[in-house]
């Protein structure tokens, strides 16, 4: 019984949030246009949170994703200034993400620094490099190729509402592809299952002869590339890049994974649950903004809701263990 409440309590809470906004914003909230809008707003968060799930599955986390996102955007923009072609600039930015992620992996897995400390340090390092590379300036306007900025605004048309085209944003599509990919990696490959084994009982994983070190190291590559991709998406959306624009992503992404964990059996991180967490945060942000709730008050509300969800889940779990 407690299990059912715990498992579906979170879902019920989410539905309550949606219902609340649907009642208070009858005109605008439950429209296709608004939901497509939400999907675009959360697409970058979704990419970071999905890749964050890969390391959180092992009980690790990566604090450097925000500054990596900024760095990747800046790197691409600087290359644009040098008139490098769009595909090459994108590949270079993703390459930076891969290298940064692997560097985190080496620090955590081979050197053996706690993920909190290692990625806190690389957070500063990546952020510093982003300032150095960009000279501390925002790169925008004619320096950014039009095609790059247009990508985020475009997307396949899926219908007409009130004489206006309904567009499925490209950024949403990118996020969907990433989530499907991460879902396959985590749920359908033995690689992903090994990561879950490490998170569940690293001692058992070691005794079973799994290459724990390499698995941990490689998993950090996902967060690096994911963060870089999110940085590019952001740069495309605002058609500019500056060395701090990804900073907000890290805490929200970790919060989304934790919210998702409250929905799963055993409280494991799973990528579809993470997606649900991302949507909750996106819906809250969207709804509260539309209700003209002050943005500072909004932050207090969102933080409180995360505490309540995770707190209730922790209490439920404690109840379960006490019974057992």
């Amino acid at each position, binding site marked *: 019984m407690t299990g059912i409440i715990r498992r579906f309590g979170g879902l019920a809470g989410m539905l309550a949030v949606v219902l609340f906004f649907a009642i208070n914003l009858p005109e605008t909230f439950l429209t296709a246009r608004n939901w497509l809008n939400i999907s675009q707003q959360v697409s970058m968060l979704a990419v970071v949170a999905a890749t964050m799930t890969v390391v959180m599955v092992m009980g690790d986390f990566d604090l450097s994703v925000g500054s990596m996102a900024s760095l990747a955007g800046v790197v691409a923009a600087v290359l644009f200034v040098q008139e490098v072609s769009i595909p090459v600039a994108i590949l270079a930015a993703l390459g930076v993400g891969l290298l940064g992620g692997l560097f985190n992996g080496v620090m955590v897995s081979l050197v053996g620094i706690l993920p909190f400390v290692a990625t806190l340090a690389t957070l500063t390092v990546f952020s510093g490099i982003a300032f150095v590379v960009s000279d501390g300036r925002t790169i925008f306007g004619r320096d950014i190729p039009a095609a790059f900025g247009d990508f985020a605004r475009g997307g396949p048309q899926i219908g007409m509402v009130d004489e206006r085209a309904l567009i499925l944003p490209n950024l949403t599509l990118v996020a969907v592809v990433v989530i499907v990919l991460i879902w*396959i990696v985590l749920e*359908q*490959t*033995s690689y992903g*299952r090994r990561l*879950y*084994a490490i*998170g*569940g*009982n690293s*001692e*058992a*994983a070691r*005794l*079973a*002869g*799994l290459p724990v070190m390499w698995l941990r190291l490689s998993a950090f590559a996902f967060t690096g590339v994911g963060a870089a991709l999110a940085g590019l998406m952001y740069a495309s959306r605002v058609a500019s890049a500056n060395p701090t624009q990804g900073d907000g992503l890290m805490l929200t992404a970790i919060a989304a994974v934790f919210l998702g964990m409250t929905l799963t*059996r*055993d409280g*494991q991180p799973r990528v579809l649950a993470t997606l649900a967490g991302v949507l909750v945060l996106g819906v809250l942000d969207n709804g509260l903004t539309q209700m003209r709730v002050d943005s500072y008050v909004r932050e207090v509300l969102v933080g409180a809701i995360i505490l309540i969800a995770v707190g209730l889940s922790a209490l439920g779990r404690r109840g379960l263990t006490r019974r057992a």
Partner: protein
Amino acid sequence: MPQLDLDTLGRRFGAVQALDGVSLTLRSGEVHALMGENGAGKSTLIRILAGLDRPDTGAMRLDGNSLPLANPVAMRAAGLRFIHQELHAVRGLSVAENMHLDRPYPRRAGLVHWRKLNADAAAALARLGLDRLDPRRPMTDLGAGDQMLVRIAGTLVGEAGAAPWLYVMDEPTAALTTAESERLFEVIGELVRQGAGVLYVSHRMPEVLRLAHRVTVLRDGKHVSTRPMAETGQDRIIEEMTGRSLSGLFPERRSDILGETILEVHGLSAGALRSADFDLRAGEILGVAGVSGSGRGALLRAILGELRARAGEVRLDGRALIGGPAQAWARGLAYVPRERRSEGLMLGRAITENVALPHLGPLARAGLFLDPRRQAGLAEEQGRRVRLKAASLTQACEELSGGNQQKVLFARALAGGPRVLLLDEPTRGVDIGARFEIYRLIRQLSDEGLGVVMASSDLPELLGLSDRVAVMRDGRLAEIVTAEGLSEAGLLQRFYHQDGRENAA
């Protein structure tokens, strides 16, 4: 029919000859019990079998061919599998996934082939008659017993050719309930019927009497006997396990009269402890005995208040203790835990800090500021009292021998001027010299009027030090017997008293 010969294996750790020329033959198709007291050499033998430790002398041969020593991969390839009492299960993964931890998942087009994964697991479970376990269930849903059975079944997944044939089980029932143990025994029976051999290590006599075809007894690292079950029995095994004299190790029992009652425990139940009643008088040493898992440690933790009491009470000097460990320490209970490395010491820190840890408040200047000189003074005074041997009091505890680490914990316990000492396995992993000093210290403290409650798995220690011995059975304090005149065999028999009857019925 494979056969593994162990030939005159010897292993020395420092001054201790842990294994002394032990020869043994393990065959498929039978359960071979390995018996011996703590320190008899069982664990060393198992570590050598697992390839985790290199014997100083001797050899291992599989069907006459020499096996490389200290090579875990080779021992695995030779068909040995090890089932330990600690479960190494990944609780979040499914049963089938747990059975594939040490082998590749079946794959199709690069992705996990879930149907085959589950089918392989189901087939392996079925071979042991465990059809009732659904391979898709998460491991969390299973009890400790079923998790162990899954672990055993996991060794049978997809094995063709070099199938495992010898299972080494080290106290497999330690964490299991009676019903779970029953199911394990059925599975062991099934394994043996299918031709596997089992080396079964357990302290639980009834299990051994029931399962084993042959019994080997080790004592002090030496091979005492290997006999078919028909030629031996409980009395003979116990006699062979304990047949030694250790009288010189223990200080003279004092003859004076004990003081007034200081600790009263009434109807206490908490955690694994189901019930306990006793009084402890000043100057008395009460031993707490019983097989592992009988609730020895839980009794101490319940007295300390670390396990919250479901029922009953603990009174110190006539006043009830209700405030948990902090109040217990403040009122004069001191506890020396069983796992000194994980529960006792800050290994990387200096002796001084370790001794002063629970006493920082009273030692502080003006109740606020740490006073390193007072701390050092305390550590020095108590260190002398427990005959601590260290280069300096600033030495980190991890550099000390096991015996001296234990003395640091004693110094810490004594620094607060306690009335009652709770000791859990006070000489575990301590060499014989330090052991003797710890015995003298315990005796001296009781002479000074402290009450001592000492849980131990070491029979000579219980009998040599205690005034009375409380026997734990199945979570209950079953009886308290006077140690004077009690023999090891007599005490050991009391461990099994009830179990023996149940099995006879």
